[in-house]
């Protein structure tokens, strides 16, 4: 056993008391769906976790009707102070059950337990705690006096941060006084269903939050429902376009948080050790299945070789394997479909002439896995420099002058995030000004906080989540 090897330290699944089958959470209760069922599996070993209901159009109808009733009879009449108290309760219940939620998240999503335990679930609680305090302070949100809730919010979320994306959507919506119909991703419904149980423990009034599980058709039914006043979506740019078209001509307010192809720019005077860590965090956090992942490394030519060598050395120490093992750095890819996309784009990278390097690690027999991979010699025209791969694949490009770095960074239809690494403060500020991206991390990467607005420029979508700006997405001002 080398000094880098550890005995397995798996988190116990025994903390979970899952039901064999989950229905839809509508009007405060679980009920069977009428659209059939599907199973959710563990991407780490393809084992069955639970059977989940598919919400049909009629089920979505019932959920929207429940949300409308709750909005009109209960939630819009409740004081901001009391809405806030419910949200504080939810935040506390999440903290109380955080270990259970972390295990469920890693089981269903495939992400390492140390990420779900140390990042996802603490942020979920923080999100509810932050917005809880806003509920009775909406006059100070910058939208003029007495801003009004929109009504029923239809929310569709992705599989990469299942419970965190739920929190990003539900916490500000409820604080602002809206009611919610939320559809979790098809491959990761588990924590949303556990969250529904938490809502029952919190005694949240029936219908304020409704959770309808299913695939794309269920999501489309939520988005297109005529009695939905607000649509919030996180996912692919292709689906985002369809949603923007679907709401054309309606009064629905929309926020879209879509894809990205972030540049992580490393100047030659960067603190190299920190930068290498930041590059690893940027693209290998959550197996690179992050819309704001630093998937394009834009490194100054003079330090290219050194950075790439150090990266390879660093990646060679990462441990890939059982997501529930506390020592695991790299977990499973969320689904076979996603794994095939990562494989396909990597194959195209080979074909287009980029040089592939893959960390030498054992791949488990079962489940969906992709070892950390770096492509060097990547040109801006390559597909792996343009398309969002959404996997643990880093494309390395080089630059000579700051202007070239900026133009390469901005040379994408996306504009979600970017990174800058340099010791020179004035350069950070100048480059940050010129990057067309909604979040710029300087000498850090992939940091999130409920008080910090997040969202894209250009085809990465519109609207912000987080902070005071995140409230504006769920309110209409008097002016």
């Amino acid at each position: 056993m080398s000094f880098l090897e550890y005995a397995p330290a798996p988190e116990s699944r025994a903390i979970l008391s899952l039901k064999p089958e989950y229905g839809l959470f509508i009007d405060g209760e679980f009920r069977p769906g009428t659209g059939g069922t599907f199973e959710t599996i563990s991407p780490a070993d393809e084992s069955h976790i639970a059977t989940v209901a598919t919400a049909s159009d009629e089920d979505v109808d019932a959920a929207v009707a429940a949300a409308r009733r709750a909005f009109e009879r209960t939630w819009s009449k409740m004081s901001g102070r009391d809405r806030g108290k419910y949200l504080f309760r939810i935040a506390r219940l999440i903290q109380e059950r955080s270990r259970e939620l972390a295990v469920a998240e890693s089981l269903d999503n495939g992400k390492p337990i140390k990420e779900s335990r140390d990042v996802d679930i603490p942020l979920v609680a923080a999100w509810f705690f932050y917005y809880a305090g806003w509920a009775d302070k909406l006059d100070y949100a910058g939208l003029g006096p007495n801003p009004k809730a929109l009504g029923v919010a239809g929310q569709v979320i992705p599989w990469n941060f299942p419970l965190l994306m739920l929190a990003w959507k539900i916490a500000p919506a409820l604080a602002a006084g809206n009611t919610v119909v939320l559809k979790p991703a098809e491959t990761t419904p588990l924590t949303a269903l556990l969250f529904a149980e938490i809502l029952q423990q919190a005694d949240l009034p029936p219908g304020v939050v409704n959770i309808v599980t299913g695939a794309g058709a269920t999501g489309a039914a939520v988005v297109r429902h005529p009695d939905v006043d607000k649509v919030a979506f996180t996912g692919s740019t292709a689906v985002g376009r369809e949603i923007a078209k679907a709401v054309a001509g309606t009064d629905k307010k929309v926020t879209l948080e879509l894809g990205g192809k972030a540049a992580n720019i490393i100047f030659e005077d960067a603190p190299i050790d920190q930068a290498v860590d930041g590059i690893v965090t940027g693209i290998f956090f959550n197996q690179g299945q992050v819309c704001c992942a630093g998937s394009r490394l834009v490194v100054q030519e003079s330090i290219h070789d050194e950075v790439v060598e150090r990266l390879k050395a660093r990646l060679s120490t990462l441990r890939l394997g059982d997501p529930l093992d506390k020592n695991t750095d790299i977990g499973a890819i969320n689904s076979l479909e996603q794994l095939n996309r990562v494989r396909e784009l990597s194959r195209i990278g080979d074909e287009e002439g980029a040089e592939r390097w893959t960390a030498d690690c054992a791949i488990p027999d079962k489940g969906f896995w992709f070892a950390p991979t770096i492509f060097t010699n990547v040109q801006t025209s390559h597909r792996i420099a343009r398309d969002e791969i959404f996997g643990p694949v880093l494309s390395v490009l080089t630059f000579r002058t700051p202007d070239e770095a900026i133009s390469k960074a901005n040379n994408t239809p996306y504009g979600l995030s970017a990174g800058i690494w340099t010791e020179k403060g004035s350069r950070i500020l100048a480059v940050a000004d010129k990057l067309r991206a909604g979040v710029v991390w300087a000498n850090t990467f992939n940091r999130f906080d409920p008080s910090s607005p997040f969202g894209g420029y250009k085809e990465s979508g519109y609207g912000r989540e987080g902070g005071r700006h995140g409230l504006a997405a769920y309110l209409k001002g008097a002016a």
Partner: protein
Amino acid sequence: MSKRLTVPKTYKLFIGGKFPRSESGRSYEVVSAKGDFLANAAMASRKDARDAVSAADGAVKGWSGTTAYNRGQVLYRVAEMLEGRRAQFVDEIVQQTGVSSAVATAEVDESIDRWVWYAGWCDKFAQVAGNGNPVAGPYFNISVPEPTGVVGIVAPQDSALLGLVSTIAPALVPGNTVVVVASQRHPLSAISLSEVLATSDVPAGVVNVLTGSPAEIAPWLASHPDVHGLDLTGAGELDWIDLQMDAAQTLTRVTSPEQGPDAAAPSLARIAQFTETKTVWHPKSLV
């Protein structure tokens, strides 16, 4: 002595700081409320729209890169120039719309005052719309609004001047550049406003004005990938749902038509609608 023969103006387009005729060679008759001939306005084509977008796109970097204080001064200068041409704008509104001189004067006065109101926002908007964020960690974290880029505008069609001012000015405040399709029936004030802009230190390409058929031009703006925002305030009589769907293809930020006397009323939200919030993080601890 015989009555002096007037020298009528040729009304052309305003693209990239120049006053070209439509490349299509087309023009259309503008008539008074009573139906009398007033002028031949240029009938802008798809090519004119594309030229205007190209000019606007080229002007984004410079205009958004000026200091907010400078943008405020330039926009205030526009108000000064408008004030100097008050009589001309009043006459044109009377001629085009048939309202009384008093009503036209009120519209011009409100246009000038509204322009001043927006000019004053330039160096304050970022303070009101942005903020520092108290994140749970040793990070400096700040959010600031930035311009969306090129904004296509279908100006209110029942207004000669005020509707134009109410849609153009807020887009310019944070540093956007615009391509505006003027009122089809009352386009003369738009070209006179262009003359004001051309003599007010507004850089070439920051405002581009097209006259002609909004129904013909707007779809080219909506689907143009270099148009990043689409203000459909005056598109109520067009197939505006199709325009929104065209805009969706490149996720262009888009608004809906507004009707009535409160259409495009001055507000902070009108400035904010074509801005993007950028959040920058930096560690506070030593690296």
